[in-house]
């Protein structure tokens, strides 16, 4: 089967002052549809860079990224925007909800972007936030905010759900709840979920595991028998 995502020799350099930093160094890997993928690595390994490139938030320095058979590395600004709009759901470490919009409004925002958006109330109910619809982000706990942020991402019915350290700002119990929510989205709804984290404990739960260090891939494995997040030994 043709993979959903294929990275081919992707390199990304940042100019930092007068120095150049190579955040992704000739990376190649594949991800299939419906997989629950974990990208692991210590801080500075280039995990977020890979995710940003995949999400169309940044441009490669060289190489190709095929999503559904199209090379998004060749896209211009306009095509990238359309790509983000139609295919990508993002979940950030610091949630990044719009502080001046309510929980419901934050999720319903997606209706302005895509035509086949799912029902915001239903999605919020599925992440357990149906009782907080009219609260502002500042009135919620971190875990609750992250659930809203996941709801917002899923509401677009995206091809890819990209999560950048989704539990990084949460305590471990809440973190488990969020991760199992994401795993459920993949198992039950068939979403392709990609999580970036530095917590290697999550590794056994992944369908596919990619380990990065200093911008290079050190391990890429497919796990035929992943465990559920709750069973992982934290």
């Amino acid at each position, binding site marked *: 089967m043709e993979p959903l995502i294929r990275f081919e020799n992707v390199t990304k350099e940042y100019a930092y*002052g007068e120095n150049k930093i190579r955040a992704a160094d000739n990376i190649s890997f594949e991800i299939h549809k419906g997989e629950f993928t974990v990208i692991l690595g210590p801080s500075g390994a280039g995990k*977020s*860079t890979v995710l*940003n490139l995949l*999400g*169309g*938030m*940044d*441009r490669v320095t060289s190489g190709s990224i095929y999503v559904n058979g199209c090379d998004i590395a060749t896209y211009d*600004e*306009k095509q990238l*925007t*359309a*790509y*983000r*709009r*139609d295919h*990508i759901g*993002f979940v*950030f470490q*610091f949630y*990044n*909800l*719009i*502080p*001046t*919009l309510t929980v419901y*409004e934050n999720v*319903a*925002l*997606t*209706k*302005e*972007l*895509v035509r086949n958006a799912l029902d915001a109330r239903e999605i919020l109910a599925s992440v357990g936030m149906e009782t907080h619809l009219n609260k502002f982000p500042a009135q919620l706990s971190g875990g609750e905010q992250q659930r809203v942020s996941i709801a*917002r991402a899923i509401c*677009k019915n995206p091809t890819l759900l990209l999560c950048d350290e989704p539990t990084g700002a949460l305590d471990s119990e809440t973190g488990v709840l969020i991760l199992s929510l994401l795993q459920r989205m993949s198992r039950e709804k068939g979403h392709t979920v990609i999580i970036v984290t530095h917590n290697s404990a999550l590794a056994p739960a992944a369908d596919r595991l990619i380990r990065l260090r200093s911008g290079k891939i050190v391990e890429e494995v497919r796990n035929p028998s992943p465990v559920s997040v709750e069973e992982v030994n934290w």
Partner: protein
Amino acid sequence: MLLKKMFRDMRQNLSQFIAIFLMSMLGVTVFAGINAEWQGMKHERDRFYEESRLPDFWLLGRNFTEEDLEEAAQISGVEAVSRRLIADAVVQIGKKPALRIHIIEDNELSRPHLVEGEAFDPARDGIWLDSYFSEAHDIRVGDTIRAEAGGMVFEKEVIGLIMHPEYVYCARDETQLFPQPENFGFAFVPKKVLPEILPLPYNQLMIRLEDSADAKVVQSELEKRFKGKYSLLQTHETHLSTSMIEMEIQQNKAIGNVFPVVFFLIAALAMLTTMVRMTGNQRIQIGTLKAMGYSRHKILFHYISYGIWIGLAGGLLGLAIGPLLVPPILFEMQKTLYYLPDWYAVLTPESCAVVIIAVLCCGASSYFACRRELKDVPAACMRPKPPRAGRHTRWEKSALWHKLGFSAQWNIRDILRSKVRSAMAIAGVAGSMTLLLCAFGVLDTIGGLGDWMYRDLHAYDYRINLKEEIHQEEIDALKQKYGGQLIQELAIELRKDGREETGFLTVIEPGEQIRFQDPERNPMTLPDSGAAMTCKMATLLGLEVGETFEWRNPGDTQWHITRVEALYRSPTGQGITMSERAYEAAYDTMVPTALLVAGNGSDAVGLPGVKDVKSKDEMRAGLEKMLESMRTLVGILILAAVVLGAVVLYNLGSLSFAERVRELATLKVLGFFPGQIRGLLNKQNLLLTIVGIIIGIPCGYALIAYMVSTLSEAIDMPARVSPATLVLCIIGTLATSLAVGLLLSRKVGTIDMVSSLKAVE
């Protein structure tokens, strides 16, 4: 959804957005208000002129006959011709006020406007009286008045009270500076009232043009056909009433157009600073929106819409309240000077266009503010903005640098590092200083005019105006009794290389009653030959000392050539002055029109050959009154300038504070006392304020000069700012800026070190 976000964002930054709202409102209020005022006056004036069929030309002469009427009517472009007799009478009541009587043949042109009583009817017996004159003397419809003219006394019943388009500015002549209905009025009388024994010497011919006619062509045709039969040809530009009200309208237009520009600039500046700060704070939100797939132009439009909504709301409110509030205040003043049948404000398309300008200013500045944030790829937006690198300056190598101490070093680097922010702070201070200086400077200039004219230049106490037909013996008798200095004043036309102006010719006896000042305002004496010309007239004609120009009496065909021997400055009466000797040597004997006397001359009233007597104080009061309307206008502007200055400075201050929170928190973490940090900020604020003031001073002077130059061709007002005013403006700006600085630096205590520094990676 984004609309909701916008309104909630605005609520969170309420003070800034209210400030921008106020400024856009003030700008439109001032423009639309003043515009509605002068447009309303203009509209009513034009309607009045049309209603009464005001002529385009008046020919003054001795006796215009039926043939003359036909002759004029034959000129192509002439719609109607009419004649009348004008005579000055004295009414036999109280202080014997003067009444200018118009004896009307057919009421075809220049018809009176009825205020009370019955409409003017050329077939009826009776008199129609100036409504302001009748009010001042408590004369009612049905009363009888007695008047004496040329030795003839007559008594008539008042049939109606009227207003007239030739007396919108109701003054006897140029020397009377404001209407005094208790001393002077006008009246209309049908011709059949007079005994029909003698043919009436109609001394005025009125000519009204067709709409399509070329006034210049008709005027030269009139000059040709009536050569020798008239003494003066008046147009709307030279007629006292029509020219005065036109000037007033132009003045208001100039002021109303200049000031809103400054307001809009400041509104745009405030919008820019607010939006730079806001989009800076919302960097991550912008990144999130981008990550979600919002297109660049959608986000751009979202932020531009802040400016558009605020500008629109402020503009529309200004458009609503400007024409409601401003004209009544100004009309109160105008009503004492100009007599129009009705006063109303007119809302013009121009005012609506200014709302669009306000919207564009705010929208464009939001665009420039957020354009930068949107350029980054979303991933870069999500990262906190890298702090701008500090750079070493050339200064640092000098020995001086090390002596400066930390706070000066920090401040210099900080200013150089954020040049745009510093430049905006300086621009804000300079703008406030400019407005304040200009407003107070215009007041000073106006205030100085009276002193200059009536203290420095005119020494006499009384001015005795002489009758036209005065005899030499009568002049000698007056001269013997009062001493003083004789002068002759007449209106002339001047030209040089195709440029033509109207002005005054003054011929003056040797004496001390009028002093002259050279262009630098040092005392000077008149040249013995040729003419001295006022600086303003010389500028208008493009003349310099030593060059020649031509002049003539209006009505004459022959031009005289004269050399400019000297330039002098005079606030009013732009034109030329010749000494008696120079005039008589070159042209004619002097025919005095007034005697200027030191000491008391008030008892000259009623002596043979005396037309009237004016005290200097009276004339000065007239001038002050004329300038009063400008003062009201400037007062409104000062108020706006102060509000504006404070708002802008606060806005800029809070912006730069927000930009530096992280740095300040770092200083705090390092163990600086809040007091030390406040001192640091205040020093920088003081430095920028001083630079701003220094830049603002010349800008203020330039704006005053511009304002003054637009006021009038007839008045030469040297821009003047007294040292006290300058100091006052500097202190005012400094105090506002420092007060705002103190207010902001108080926030140092509230910086939460943990949350300010948390997001740093």
